[in-house]
């Protein structure tokens, strides 16, 4: 009998827990009634928020659907999309990218991030982008065509974020955490690029990565171009691979594939005070292409390639350090990295990092090591001349 009563109580739980006034079944929705929004664009203009939402290309290749709504607040604008269109219900649980128009940053990014954090559908794991020099809506319209959607292109950029040139795409969560920690954050910057297809009627434009934007106290501070982005990726430890073409002295251009890249920050103390930070970078390289010399076992050639690669990487890193010094901002988060490594030694410095950073000296130690040459000719015991017979 006790068990029976327990069963009854369990079954009645929804009613007893005040869910009784809600018919749970009526809350369901069939999946085919949903339009899964993948990208949301947010623009501010004269105190009005304009939200643009787009789906990806359908599984059957159908064109992406784009919805738009304006309101006084972000929540109202999104609600307008959810309720203002007939047919499919715009579904915001799978938003993968949020694009903010440049003008929107004048109002500050905090409001947007706060909304994303509160909304039950939107996710903080969505990638955050800044549309440089225009509105998010314009960029989304320009880059969404019959067979391509902006979300697909941004997804591709995000996947390649570990590749040297692209740089890491930061999520809303990353930006929120960085702003909370240091009052500063990086946002991936994009703009509409060249037409995606040539020789056809489709005038869809590609999405072009434009480096990072530094956000300070929630507002746009400075743009960093793609050259600096590469170095920032190396210092922050996000970049794991990439492609590099160097001029090896007397051997012409050699294209190298960076198979692994490790970065370490080494603090140097003088009289107990942090004075210098050494940025140590070790890159493992493979030869991808060499136009002039195919004799990879030549020690001199290898040394020259390694040296040229080290110089190239050093220049990239130096560019970031120079920019950082110029702005007086530690946008690569070196302070946090050093503190995590030496929490006791750097406790005082971490608390006054902005002041310490202004007077900090930087040194670089770059080591490039050629791991694989893919020397097919020698491995096959090829003994003839380069183009001869053997």
């Amino acid at each position, binding site marked *: 009998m006790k068990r029976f009563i327990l069963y009854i109580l*369990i079954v009645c739980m929804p009613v007893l827990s005040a869910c009784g006034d809600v018919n749970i079944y009526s*809350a369901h929705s*069939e999946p085919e009634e949903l339009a*899964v929004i993948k990208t949301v664009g947010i623009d501010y203009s004269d105190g009005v928020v304009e939200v643009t939402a787009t789906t990806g290309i359908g599984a059957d290749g159908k064109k992406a659907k784009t919805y738009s709504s304006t309101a006084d607040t972000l929540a109202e604008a999104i609600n307008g999309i959810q309720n203002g269109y007939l047919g499919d219900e715009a579904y915001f649980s*799978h938003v993968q990218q949020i694009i903010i128009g440049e003008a929107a940053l004048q109002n500050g990014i905090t409001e947007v991030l706060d909304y994303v954090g509160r909304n039950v*559908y939107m996710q903080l794991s969505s990638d955050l982008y800044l549309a440089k020099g225009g509105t998010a809506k314009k960029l989304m319209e320009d880059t969404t065509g019959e067979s391509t959607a902006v979300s697909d292109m941004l997804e591709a950029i995000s996947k390649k974020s570990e590749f040297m040139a692209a740089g890491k795409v930061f999520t809303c969560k990353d930006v929120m955490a960085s702003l909370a920690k240091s009052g500063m954050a990086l946002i991936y910057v994009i703009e509409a690029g060249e037409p995606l297809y040539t020789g056809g009627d489709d005038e869809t434009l590609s999405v072009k990565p434009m480096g990072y934007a530094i956000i300070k106290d929630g507002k746009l501070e400075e743009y960093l171009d793609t050259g600096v982005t590469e170095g920032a990726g190396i210092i922050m430890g996000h970049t794991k691979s990439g492609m590099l073409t160097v001029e090896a002295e007397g051997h012409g251009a050699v294209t190298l594939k960076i198979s692994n890249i490790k970065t370490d920050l080494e603090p140097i103390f003088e009289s107990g005070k942090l004075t210098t930070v050494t940025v140590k970078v070790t890159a493992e390289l493979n030869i991808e292409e060499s136009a002039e010399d195919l004799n990879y076992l030549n020690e001199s050639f290898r040394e020259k390639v390694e040296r040229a690669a080290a110089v190239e990487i050093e220049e990239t890193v130096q560019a970031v350090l120079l920019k950082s010094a110029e702005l007086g901002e530690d946008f690569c988060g070196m302070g946090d990295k050093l503190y995590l490594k030496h929490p006791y030694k750097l406790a005082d410095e971490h608390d006054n990092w902005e002041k310490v950073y202004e007077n900090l000296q930087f040194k670089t130690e770059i080591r490039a090591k050629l791991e694989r040459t893919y020397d097919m000719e020698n491995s096959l015991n090829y003994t003839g001349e380069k183009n001869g017979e053997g």
Partner: protein
Amino acid sequence: MSDRNGPVSSKSVKNTFQNCYDLSAREIQLGGADGKIKATVCYIDGLVSGVTVAETIIRPATVKERFAAVELESDAIELILKGGIYTYTAILRTELEQVVDDMLNGFCALVFDAAGAAVTFEVRSPDKRSIDEPKEEKVVKGSKDVFIEIMRTNTMQVRRKLRNPNLRLKQITVGATSKTSMVIAYIDGYTNMEYVEEMERRLKDADFDSVVSAASVEEHIYDKPRSMFPQMLRTERPDRFCMNLLEGRVGLLIDGLPMGYLAPGTFSQFYKVPDDNAKHYIVASAMTLLRYAAVIIALLLPALYVAVVMYHQEMLPPKLLVSIIESRKSVPFPSALEVLGMLIAFELLQEAGLRLPNTIGQTVSIIGALIVGQSAVEAKVISPVVVIVIALSGIASYTVPDQDMSAAVRVHRFLLVLAAIAAGLYGVVLGFAALIYNVCSMESFGVSYMEPFAGSKGSKIRELLRFPITKTQHMDPELRKEKK
């Protein structure tokens, strides 16, 4: 109904079996034509061998030299009991009920009217099904014999595998109408006698009328007869039966049922197959874990699909959600109806396949699964994702080795789908919690049903896997240990 408590006579035997065309009653004179004593040979044709009756009873009984000089029935009976007739058993019966029971158990009765007694001889008919290959519990490496409907043959098979005098086979007759013989099997010194006594008590206390089906036994002696989950291990294989006896379980063999029962039956036992002991222990352990994964898939996959698709679409990866949306675009039915319909169709197909002869059953499966299924998807009546979900769940349910357990899982799958339709994941969790509560509160002969998951303090969790036989004992010390 005739009175079975009357005096023993050929007339009373005939009265008892009136209108039974298979009763054979032949009057003979002991010592041949010149003999002075009349007796009636009574037997049930079919249950006993007529040839054996003629050779071993009638022929020696009519030898002139042996019985001609006997004048009194009591002397004749004494002579028969001393070996005057060549059968290996000769039992004196003075009560009609005993005579009738013997006859129904394959004995022939030589009835002496004046003495009011009969001598019964065991002359069972050898007509029986041959020992076939296993149909339900097939193995690649292992013996190929199975239990049959004749209990004596089954006990013989057990004895052959366990040539140990401590193997006890305790006979008990139950069923007011059917008078079915059962044998409680156990190994003295291995089995906790409490289980043996409990088995005997349950069989004696049960109000059996007849035992002609498995359910009539199960429902009388299960701890929780209302539960759909099997509570005693059932096997058609003598080797598995013996292995479990060696582990300390008590067995039950029933005349007329080609299977043996083993108690206590715990949840984990139903996920072991005889092949486990024939395979390498790592392979066997991996397969066992796979079967546990399969029961979770069989039980929960359709319910989770319904819950996620109807209420929690945010849980699906974007590409999968888009794929489901596209596949459901032209389907006219709501997801709930679609899944329920497919589950019912799946059960119909299975039932049709079981009831029909093998060859036709296969044809039905092909028509049902391939032709109707494919046509339904092409006609956009159902979505391919639902077909995949139901098929995956169905296949997973087939990996459950015990058919009763599989059936219980399938019924609960329906209930969980209904819970999912009503309240999404909340309903599934609620339903699953109720199910777990139910099975965890069950016991089989005093042992927790969910052992080793519950009730054993985790000490027997290694029983889930198979460890090298050289490092483990056959016997389960927990089962053997005398309870305080």
